[in-house]
C-alpha cells in the first residue's frame, strides 16, 4: 500500500510528527538513515555504558495542571499521558561572567528575579517592564528578523545584564552569531527562565523507545538504515522518495525534518545563496566513578560561563573557543541516583571549517580532539573544582562527528541561521519541520513536527 505520508528523519521532530499523524491515519512511514533513532538526541555505547549524544537538559518544564504549557500541549497532541512519565527537575543553574557577576536561576522564576534585584538593582524595574512586554508579545506571529540584543540594550540599559541573560538562551538555541531573533528570544526566555530544565527518567534511549513504541502501536512503520537520496518531483508536487538501496516509495505527502539545505540537496536544488555562518560546537564527556560526586558541586545542574565580556557567540578563529561554554552535571537533577558512573559534560563554540581542514589527517584530527578536550577540562575545572584524576573515560564530538552521525550540514546543531517558520518550501505536498522550521530544543522540535502536521497535512490528507 502506498503510504499516505512519509516522514524523512527519525529525530524527535520526525517521531512527534509521525505519532501525530498515526493517531488518525494508518500506514504512516518514518524513514531514518541510521540504525538508531534520535537524530541529535541519540546515544552510543562506550566503556560498557550508554552515553547520550545531545541531551543536557530538556527545557520547558511545566507542572501537570498547566494545560497551556508547551510540554503539556505536546503530550496531549501525542496522546502520551503525563502520568506515564517521570520527570526530574533541575536543582539550580548559574550564569557566570568571570570577574564580573553571577546569576542563579531555577525552575522557580522568583529566584532569577531576586538575583537581578540584588545584583543589578538599577535594572530591576526595566526587567519587570521586559516581563510585561513579553507577556503581551506573540512570538509565533510571522515577523522579519529583529535583533534581540539591540532590543534588550535599549530596554535594560546594562550591557552586562543583557549579555548574561542572552548567554544561556544563545547556547541552547541560537543559530545566529552574536544575536538572536526577538521572537526566538521570547520563546527561549519562556522555555529556560520561566519554565526551566528537567530530564525524563532513565536515558534518552528509554525516551526514544517510548516514542517509537507508541508510534508502532498506532500502526506506523519505522524503517531504519533508509537513507533518502532523492525526492522525486513533478512540478510542485513531490511524488515519492528514492532510497539509497534504489527502492522507490511513493506517497501523497512528505514531511522532511532533515534541514532546509539538506532537503534542497535531495530535491536536486542548489544551496540557498549567502547563508550566514553556521555555528558549530564541540562537546566533551568526562566519565567519573560515582564516588567522585563529592568532588563536584552538588547543587548546580547547568553552568553557563563566559570569561570575556562582551560575550562573543560566533564562529571561533581556532578549532574551538573555550572562553565561554556550558557545563552540565546530568546527575544533579532532583531524585536522580546514579549507579556506577556520573558525567561532566562541556560544550564550546567550534569552527567547522578548521575541523574540516584537518579531518583527512586522522592523526592530526585525533590529536586536536584530545588537545581541545584538555583545554576544555582546564577551563571547566575553574568552575567545578579539580576532578581530572578521577576520569575513567572521556570522549569528544566535533562538528565533523555531528555531521557524520546526524547528516546536519556542517554539524550545526541549531541548523541554518535562516528559518522557514511556516514549513513551506514551495511545494504542494512537501513540508519542512524540525530544526530549520525554527522551534529548538526537544520540546520545541517535537512541537514543530506536530504543528507542521496540524497546519499542512492533517486537514488535507
Amino acid at each position, binding site marked *: 500500500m502506498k503510504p499516505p505520508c512519509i516522514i524523512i528523519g527519525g529525530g524527535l521532530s520526525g517521531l512527534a510528527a509521525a505519532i501525530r499523524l498515526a493517531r*488518525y491515519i494508518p500506514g504512516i512511514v518514518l524513514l531514518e538513515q541510521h540504525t538508531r533513532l534520535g537524530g541529535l538526541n541519540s546515544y552510543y555505547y562506550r566503556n560498557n555504558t550508554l552515553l547520550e549524544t545531545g541531551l543536557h537538559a530538556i527545557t520547558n518544564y511545566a507542572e501537570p495542571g498547566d*494545560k497551556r504549557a508547551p510540554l503539556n*500541549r505536546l503530550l*496531549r*497532541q501525542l496522546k502520551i499521558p503525563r502520568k506515564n512519565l517521570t520527570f526530574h527537575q533541575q536543582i539550580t543553574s548559574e550564569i557566570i561572567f568571570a570577574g564580573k557577576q553571577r546569576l542563579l536561576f531555577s525552575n522557580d522564576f522568583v529566584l532569577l528575579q531576586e538575583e537581578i534585584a540584588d545584583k543589578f538593582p538599577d535594572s530591576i524595574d526595566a526587567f519587570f517592564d521586559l516581563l510585561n512586554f513579553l507577556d503581551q508579545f506573540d512570538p509565533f506571529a510571522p515577523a522579519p528578523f529583529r535583533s534581540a540584543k539591540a532590543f534588550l540594550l535599549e530596554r535594560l540599559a546594562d550591557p552586562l545584564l543583557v549579555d548574561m541573560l542572552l548567554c544561556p538562551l544563545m547556547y541552547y538555541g541560537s543559530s545566529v552569531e552574536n544575536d538572536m531573533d526577538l521572537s526566538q528570544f521570547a520563546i527561549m526566555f519562556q522555555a529556560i527562565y520561566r519554565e526551566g530544565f528537567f530530564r525524563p527518567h532513565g536515558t534518552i534511549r528509554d525516551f526514544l523507545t517510548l516514542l517509537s513504541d507508541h508510534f508502532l502501536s498506532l500502526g506506523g512503520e519505522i524503517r531504519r538504515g533508509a537513507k533518502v537520496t532523492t525526492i522525486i518531483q513533478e512540478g510542485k508536487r513531490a511524488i515519492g522518495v528514492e532510497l539509497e538501496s534504489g527502492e522507490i516509495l511513493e506517497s501523497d505527502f512528505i514531511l522532511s525534518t532533515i534541514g532546509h539545505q539538506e532537503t534542497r540537496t535531495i530535491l536536486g536544488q542548489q544551496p540557498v545563496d549567502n547563508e550566514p555562518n553556521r555555528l558549530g560546537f564541540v562537546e566533551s564527556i568526562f566519565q567519573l566513578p560515582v564516588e567522585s560526586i563529592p568532588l563536584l558541586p552538588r547543587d548546580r545542574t547547568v553552568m553557563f560561563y563566559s570569561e570575556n565580556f562582551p560575550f562573543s557567540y560566533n564562529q571561533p578563529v581556532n578549532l574551538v573557543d573555550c572562553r565561554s561554554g556550558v557545563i552540565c552535571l546530568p546527575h544533579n537533577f532532583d531524585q536522580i541516583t546514579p549507579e556506577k558512573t556520573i558525567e561532566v559534560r562541556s560544550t564550546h563554540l567550534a569552527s567547522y571549517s578548521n575541523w574540516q581542514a584537518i579531518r583527512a589527517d586522522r592523526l592530526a584530527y585525533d590529536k586536536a580532539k584530545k588537545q581541545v578536550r584538555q583545554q576544555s577540562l582546564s577551563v571547566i575545572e575553574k568552575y567545578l573544582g579539580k576532578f581530572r584524576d578521577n576520569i575513567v573515560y572521556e570522549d569528544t564530538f566535533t562538528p565533523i562527528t555531528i555531521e557524520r552521525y546526524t547528516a546536519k550540514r556542517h554539524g550545526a546543531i541549531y541548523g541554518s541561521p535562516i528559518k522557514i517558520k511556516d514549513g513551506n518550501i514551495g511545494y504542494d505536498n512537501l513540508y519542512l519541520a524540525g530544526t530549520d522550521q525554527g522551534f529548538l530544543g526537544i520540546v520545541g522540535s517535537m512541537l514543530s513536527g506536530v*504543528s507542521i502536521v496540524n497546519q499542512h497535512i*492533517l*486537514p488535507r490528507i
Partner: protein
Amino acid sequence: MTNDEIKDLILEIIEDIDDEADFDNLNPDEPLRDQLDLDSMDFLDIVMELRKRHQLQIPEEDYPQLATLNSCVNYLEPLLKNA
C-alpha cells in the same frame, strides 16, 4: 443521531482530549475553546476524531461552525442523520 447524542459525542471527544475538562458550567452557546481552555491544536483533534469515528470529512472553511456546542449540533445533525 439525535441532537443529544451528538452533544454527548462532542463531549466524549473533548474528554478524551483532556480528561480534566469540566463540563459543569458549560454554556452551549459560548465558544468551547474559551470555556474549556482548548487551543487550536486541541480543536483540530475534534475534527480528526469525527473523521476517525464517523468518516466525516470536514473542510477547513467549515471549522468555525464547530465553535460552540450548539453550533456543532446544528452543523453535524444533517451529516450524522443516519449514524
